[in-house]
């Protein structure tokens, strides 16, 4: 990378002014622009072209560069969004460093914006091109940064999403460390029986993925493990994994296990069954345990040792916690969701026995295949209440959880199939069985399941009624009548919530949304990337998804990750911040403001200074203005380059200003009275601002606070007041470290 800071150099610059068919030349006099810049310092060649981006034009540009030995190039045409890369490529083909190319946008900014004022449009174009030339005079070579990348990924979470990602990466030749927090893989999908859509069962899907994961040599699975620290950056993360003891060294036979479980005195609520039953500290998930090795829940185990005898040495209560560190080029986060847990008393949950959640119903169906019984009563009528913990008018859970309408309808269909005679009522807020899932809704409604709809802003009421329970709602579909149902069971169709895992969020430094889910960079254009280069999110840790959607996003993340790290090196844009270590005093302000964690503190001789971690810096420039020592520069946008551009644009304006001032000077000297007359001409808001400054200098937020004018507006009004000499900078900062402004000398 060049250490060039953009000082002026003797350069031969080629300038091309494009007609863009007529898009530009219909309003901007391109020939006039050409004439105006021909003699500008540094310019050695100016041409106008009909379509600069055309092949023929590109070819002749390459020739121009070679023949004339040009060392910078300016194209005045369309937006750089369109053709920056095109002309950088032209430069590269001609052997010129592509960062010596400047694109000036005189189409959107001149011809299209000012098509009613062609003369002014031309004038503006001239200034813009001159600014481009000035910048070009100061450019130095920049080279994309190449950093090394380890072709290995850490996949966090071994639900279906994590396992799918691991398999896919492994298949493409990337080594994978798959890290699962629980002793068993599969996440929530392993808890479900038949899942929509199709015939497959949730646990079967998990089993298939797991069996495949086992056969892959380049996947290492850690269960009972978590990511506890991440250092380094894209291409070369240093990931610390903490491995919890499992307590079971070798699989206990069925008899041993039964006996040891019998002996274990400690029991806890069984989370796998959503608290429908309890389990011992020594446990597994029956034939749904992947891996099929039992585990000890050390949160519940008191290490009493009562299980040891039955286990014949296969249990080790003394296993230590371990930590290991691995190098990885990318990290894929697939930590999934948690079902919404209703508050106590929310629709009677936790208070009325007959109220359960959809996840609990799913488990109940798995546990009771023949006959559905709840509290000793055979269930005949079930009322489902939708959108519990989703689509709430305010708070965190304003989103729709996507999976649940279909899951509830699907549950109703399976209830009908497996337990003939059960009738269900669905109290919803507008069904969302989108896409192909609609056929399930269709089927369910034809099969005699009844749908009722409550209005936005109203809610069904669940009450105890003698021995049973009653549900009331105003049903939109029955003329808003109040309807009363007496079901045997009320099922709350609970949504998805983000996992409550602040440790992980902090370790990965990933942004989370107001809803608690991890945020992608751009929902549409970059849906699985995060602001942290090399860290990807997919599956339900990103937002509610069903299985299909989970898989899709997970495949997208693997494609992105593999493309990034499999080449061995990663090339990064060279437009980075650089810190002048001489000037830097380590105040830490840049570190505070940088959202990408790209600043590190290093020792330089006997002082501490800030240094930019090149691989992490995005060149956003946020750190520049906060540095009190002005120690930071942004390559490609150095202070000198930017000032030179401003000067070029302001040149004419300054000239005009000067005339104005001269005219004013020619009139009798300014007096107090003139000042007042001048102020009188201002509008109310600007007067208000001036009034606040009468006592003493003030900063923008203070002025905004006193006048009630929004900060932004205060800012630009101040700028123009300053420009026309009403106020001046004090060059001092107040206690809150804001610059202050004072009335200009004219006023005194």
């Amino acid at each position, binding site marked *: 990378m060049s250490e060039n800071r953009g000082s002026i150099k003797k350069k031969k610059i080629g300038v091309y002014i494009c007609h863009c068919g007529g898009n530009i030349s219909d309003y901007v006099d391109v020939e006039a622009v050409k004439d105006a810049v021909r003699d500008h310092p540094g310019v050695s060649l100016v041409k106008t072209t009909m379509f600069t981006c055309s092949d023929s034009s590109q070819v002749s540009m390459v020739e121009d560069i070679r023949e004339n030995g040009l060392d910078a190039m300016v194209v005045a045409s369309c937006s750089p969004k369109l053709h920056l890369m095109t002309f950088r490529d032209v430069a590269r083909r001609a052997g010129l460093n592509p960062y010596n190319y400047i694109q000036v946008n005189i189409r959107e900014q001149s011809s299209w914006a000012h098509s009613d004022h062609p003369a002014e449009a031309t004038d503006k174009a001239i200034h813009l091109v001159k600014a481009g030339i000035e910048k070009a005079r100061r450019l130095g070579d920049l080279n994309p940064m190449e950093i090394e990348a380890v072709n290995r990924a850490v996949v966090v979470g071994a639900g279906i999403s994590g396992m799918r990602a691991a398999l896919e990466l492994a298949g493409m030749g990337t080594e994978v460390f798959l890290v699962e927090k629980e002793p068993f893989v599969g996440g929530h999908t392993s808890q479900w029986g038949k899942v929509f859509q199709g015939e497959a069962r949730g646990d079967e899907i998990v089993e298939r993925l797991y069996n495949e994961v086992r056969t892959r040599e380049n996947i290492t699975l850690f269960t009972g493990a978590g990511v506890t620290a991440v250092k380094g950056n894209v291409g070369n993360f240093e990931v610390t994994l903490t491995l919890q003891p499992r307590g079971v060294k070798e699989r206990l036979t069925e008899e041993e296990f039964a006996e040891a479980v019998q002996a274990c005195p400690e029991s806890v609520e069984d989370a796998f069954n959503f608290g429908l039953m309890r389990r011992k500290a020594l446990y597994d998930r029956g034939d749904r345990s992947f891996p099929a090795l039992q585990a000890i829940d050390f949160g519940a185990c008191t290490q009493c040792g009562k299980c040891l005898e039955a286990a014949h040495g296969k249990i080790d209560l003394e296993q230590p916690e371990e930590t290991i560190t691995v190098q990885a080029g990318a990290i894929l986060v697939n930590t999934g969701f948690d079902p919404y847990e209703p508050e106590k008393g929310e629709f009677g949950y936790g208070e009325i026995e007959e109220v359960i959640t959809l996840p609990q119903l799913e488990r109940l169906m798995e546990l009771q295949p023949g006959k559905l019984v709840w509290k000793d009563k055979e269930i005949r009528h079930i009322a489902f209440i939708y959108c519990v913990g989703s689509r709430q008018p305010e708070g965190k859970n304003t989103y729709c959880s996507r999976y649940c309408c279909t899951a509830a309808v699907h549950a109703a269909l399976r209830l009908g199939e497996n337990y003939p005679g059960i009738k269900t009522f669905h109290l919803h807020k507008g069904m969302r069985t989108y896409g192909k899932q609609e056929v399930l809704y269709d089927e369910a409604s034809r099969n005699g399941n*009844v749908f009722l709809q409550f209005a936005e802003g109203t809610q069904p009421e669940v009450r105890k009624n003698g021995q049973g329970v009653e549900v009331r709602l105003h049903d939109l579909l*029955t003329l808003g009548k109040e309807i009363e149902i007496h079901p045997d069971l009320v099922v709350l169709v609970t949504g998805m919530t983000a996992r409550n895992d602040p440790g992980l969020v902090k370790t990965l430094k990933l942004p989370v949304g107001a809803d608690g889910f991890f945020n992608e960079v751009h929902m549409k254009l970059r849906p699985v990337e995060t602001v942290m280069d090399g860290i990807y999110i997919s599956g339900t840790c990103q937002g509610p998804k069903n299985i299909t959607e989970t898989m899709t996003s997970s495949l997208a993340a693997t494609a992105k990750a593999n493309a990034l790290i499999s080449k061995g090196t990663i090339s990064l844009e060279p437009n980075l911040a650089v810190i002048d270590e001489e000037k830097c005093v380590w105040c830490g302000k840049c570190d505070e403001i940088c959202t990408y964690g790209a600043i590190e503190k290093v020792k330089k001789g006997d002082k501490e200074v800030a240094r930019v971690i090149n691989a992490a810096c995005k060149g956003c420039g946020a750190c520049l203005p906060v540095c009190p020592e002005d120690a930071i520069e942004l390559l490609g946008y150095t202070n000198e380059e930017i000032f030179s551009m401003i000067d070029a644009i302001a040149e004419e304006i300054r000239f005009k200003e000067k005339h104005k001032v001269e005219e004013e000077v020619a009139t009798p000297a300014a007096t107090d009275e003139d000042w007042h007359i001048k102020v009188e001409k201002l509008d109310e808001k600007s007067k208000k601002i001036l009034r606040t400054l009468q006592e003493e200098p003030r900063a923008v937020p203070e002025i905004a606070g006193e006048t009630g004018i929004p900060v932004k507006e205060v800012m630009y009004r101040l700028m123009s007041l300053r420009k026309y000499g009403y106020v001046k900078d004090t060059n001092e900062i107040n206690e809150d470290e804001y610059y202050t402004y004072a009335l200009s000398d004219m006023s005194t």
Partner: protein
Amino acid sequence: MAKVNPDFSETLKDYGAFDLTACYNCGTCTAVCTLSDEENSIPRKMVRYGVLGLEEEIQSSVDPWLCYYCGECSTSCPRQAGPGELMMSLRRYLTASYDWTGLSRRFYTSKIWEIAAIMLLSALILVLFLLFHGPMTTELTPQGGVQLNTFAPWKRIETGDWIMAGILSFFLLSNIFRMYRKIFHGPQKIRVPFRLFFTQLWELIFHFLTQWRFSKSTRTTRIGRKELKISPYWVSHWLLMSGYVLLFTMIVVFLEWFQTDIIHPWWHPQRLLGYYATFGLAFGLIFFVYGRIRRDQENNKHSHYTDWTFLVLLSGTVITGILVHIFRISGLPYATYYTYVLHLMILFPMLMIEVPFSKWSHLAYRPFAVYFNGVRNAALKIKK
């Protein structure tokens, strides 16, 4: 507060409804129904009540009676939920729910009950004839006709008629009273100024005589190239209805004049009225039976067994009635006697079962529903 009965939609299937839970509340049915208006929005509301099993609401509603089953709604329903047939089944259900004896529900939901009742009542007629018939003389009248009044003296038959009419009226009127209670004292209590029952009385009579709403509901039909503006359903129904009422009146009130041994000339009012009534009945019957066999329209596609019972009994009555007349004037004594007994063996169960407990009760419930509805809407208007 409306309480849901989860098993109601199953119950309703016994009364002929099908697939009603397929309804997804689009409201197309109500939009296309020519009889639906602001005051009585049909049929979606009733479909919904049926799906949820809001029995009290249904029982207190007149709406099912306001539908004449043109079938337009069923044809338009995007879910084939059969709203028209649902309205039909609700009429059956309402008939059963007005009836305090519980027999109506039995007849509608059990074929065995219905057939057994018919057999029993037929047998009763047979026994009565065996016990009380007059001499079976083969001697003919001077005009060559059979002496029917010797075998079955009109006085005796008339006594029986009056007893039967008394029983029929008792059941029917008591059921209409229950209908009134349910409509005006159901969950939606309305205070009705008493005078409205008089001012709206014209509706009862007018609709009984004309079935005017029916004429508005049913589709006009295409015959050849021409669009027939008058509905053939309404015409057939009116012919059938008028024939029936005429005959019933002649049998019960004017039997002496109607069942005579004299053979009047063809233009005599006794014969003309008899022929008209027979024609009306026969025309209507042929029209409706043919339709139910063809099953080409929504309103004849789905026949409940009670529909067929009614049509078969009525056809039997008409055919035997015609035969009695022919045999009598042709001077065939035995044929006349046996056919006469058979005629009554069909007629009697038909009237006893159909009029108070089954399909034919609609001849009272429909005009009463229109009448009650008029009273109710007038009362609601005053309240506003």
